[in-house]
């Protein structure tokens, strides 16, 4: 399946926050082995609203509120998957992943390998990342690099409602553990979302804006910021090509290299802490495999090496935005 085979939109607008439960509902209708569990996902419909309505349709045997027990939530999914179910579990804020880390990295991610390949673990772990909502250091992190570093997991982070539904559907149907990261800043973002079920294939990047001068690799909330930067620079005659990996691990390097072969410059943008972030891996891969195409060193943009601050003034300075992306692009262009 390629991007051009994807279903055409039916012209229906849907916000990200509703695209998520629509994907879950369609997967649950399709497969009785799919169930949903997590803190406040049933009666309350999740604190983010991303599971609203599912309890009404599927009932308490398939949509379960859990205790505030992140270890047990991932263990529930791992054990249920090991004996044949297809769990979807919600970890609420991604910051809480630390509580569940053993189950995630030592059990769920490694069970198949440790068992010599015999286990099948079709688990989708939903979690919400991202700063910009004044929730401070323990409710704002984007920790995708931590999970991308663990063999056995796949990591997905959609930047819009269309991709959210398609990637979540693909994640639930996939036979491996997938960490599905929602950026909570994007929950209200609306795009064309077809009514029928569809998949956005895992491992396939999207060129969301074609351009000729600089390839900007951005994911999650940074895609919108990169598009705004591209719009701002267009009037100055600088053309950005924006590539959204969508699946953060495995990384679709071929699509990015094809873009770099055209632009000869690359800027990797992430919302999370720049140091040892996933962007460092992407930049290294681009430099290793695309060196002959590059007219300048690969540039990186990310958050400073500090926890996410509370003060709106500080937080705004913390998260990269369109202006900083545009400034970096200008530096790459030497203008």
């Amino acid at each position: 399946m390629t991007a051009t085979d994807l279903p055409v939109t039916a012209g229906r607008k849907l916000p990200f926050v509703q695209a998520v439960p629509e994907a879950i509902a369609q997967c649950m209708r399709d497969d009785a082995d799919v169930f949903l569990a997590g803190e406040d996902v049933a009666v309350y419909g999740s604190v983010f609203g991303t599971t609203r309505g599912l309890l009404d349709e599927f009932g308490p045997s398939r949509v379960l509120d859990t205790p505030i027990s992140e270890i047990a939530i991932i263990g529930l999914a791992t054990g249920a998957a090991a004996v044949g179910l297809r769990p979807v579990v919600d970890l609420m804020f991604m910051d809480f992943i630390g509580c569940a880390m053993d189950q995630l990295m030592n059990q769920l991610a490694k069970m198949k390998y440790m068992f010599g390949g015999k286990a099948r673990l079709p688990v989708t772990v939903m979690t919400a990342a991202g700063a910009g909502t004044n929730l401070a250091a323990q409710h704002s992190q984007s920790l995708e690099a931590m999970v991308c570093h663990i063999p056995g997991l796949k990591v997905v982070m959609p930047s819009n409602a269309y991709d959210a539904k398609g990637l979540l559907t693909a994640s639930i149907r996939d036979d491996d553990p997938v960490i599905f990261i929602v950026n909570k800043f994007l929950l209200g973002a609306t795009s064309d979302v077809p009514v029928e079920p569809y998949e956005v294939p895992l491992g396939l990047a999207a060129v969301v804006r074609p351009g000729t001068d600089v390839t900007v690799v951005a994911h999650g909330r940074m895609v919108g910021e990169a598009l705004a930067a591209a719009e701002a620079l267009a009037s100055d005659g600088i053309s950005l090509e924006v590539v959204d990996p969508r699946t953060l691990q495995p990384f679709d390097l071929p699509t990015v290299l094809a873009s770099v072969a055209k632009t000869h410059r690359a800027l990797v943008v992430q919302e999370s802490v720049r140091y040892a972030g996933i962007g460092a891996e992407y930049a290294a891969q681009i430099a290793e495999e695309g060196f002959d195409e590059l007219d300048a060193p690969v540039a990186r943009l990310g958050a400073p090496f500090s926890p996410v601050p509370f003060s709106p003034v500080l937080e705004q300075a913390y998260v990269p935005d369109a202006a900083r992306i545009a400034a970096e692009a200008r530096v790459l262009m030497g203008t």
Partner: protein
Amino acid sequence: MPPSELAPTPAQLVDMHRRMARIRHFEEEAGKLVEGGKIPGALHLYVGEEAVAAGVMVHLDVDDQITSTHRGHGHVIAKGGDFKLMYAELFGKATGYCRGKGGSMHISDLDLGILGANGIVAGSVPIAVGAAFANRYRDTDRVTVCFFGDGASNEGAFHEAANMAALYQLPVVFVCENNLYGEFTSQPRHQRVTDIADRAVGYGMPGVIADGMDASAVFGAAGECIARARAGGGPSLLECKTYRFYDHVGVTGMRIPYRDEAEVDEWKGRDPIAALELRLVEEDVLTADAVAAVHQSVVAEIADAIAFAEASPDPDISSLTEDVYSNPIEPGGVR
């Protein structure tokens, strides 16, 4: 809870004895192999605790599941594990249960309902809850038994999993093998309670204590807990007081004194296999010759299994990165 009145039949006594003898000889030979440098890595031997595995497992069908620990060989054997595949795995051979990728601490056989030994203390407790959830989700009468130790009872994973199992009234039995040491730290030095079964009241489930050196006592207590779970009566915590005859790791460990020889000798005087054999002969269930024949047949089977393991090929280097995913994704979304 009062002591169980459930008693094994003569046939069940013989069955338990055979399982215990299989464990004992497997472990004695494994200990020699690791001390002799023939098996790489570390082994945690189950010698002394055989009555627990046998007394529990005699109640389980092949479709029932267990989760195990780092000291897991006994559980695997009692659940029907294959000596050849086990030894081959201990040798790290391609023919082993895990294709040489797991070793002693990760032996599993999903076809036998063995959801893995586990290298993380209490790591398998939440997984057992997940398997039990799946059993009920699919409306089966399968039961999951979760083995763990006194040390694991101090882990957060145990607490979260026990609470969740009780909350959902899942068909799981938590079997605590209290061998009085968490690694090298004695129980009075790692927790204030003497009876871990007391903790059950904090979760709203029955707590039961059994003499883990007496196969019949384990049989009775485990039988009631398993029958309750199977009938929809929810989880139980069964504490079996037992003792490991060898060190935490290997046979003789690093010879750093942490327990008295007198204590070891006293527990060895309560050898569960010797005690059961005395009863088998006294009650005319088996003759002394028949008991000896059990040992002879197991010893012969083990010799064959070790020969198979030693003659087996090492894993091919090409298999190193296999089995990480069920559905590997090539870059660019091409599967």
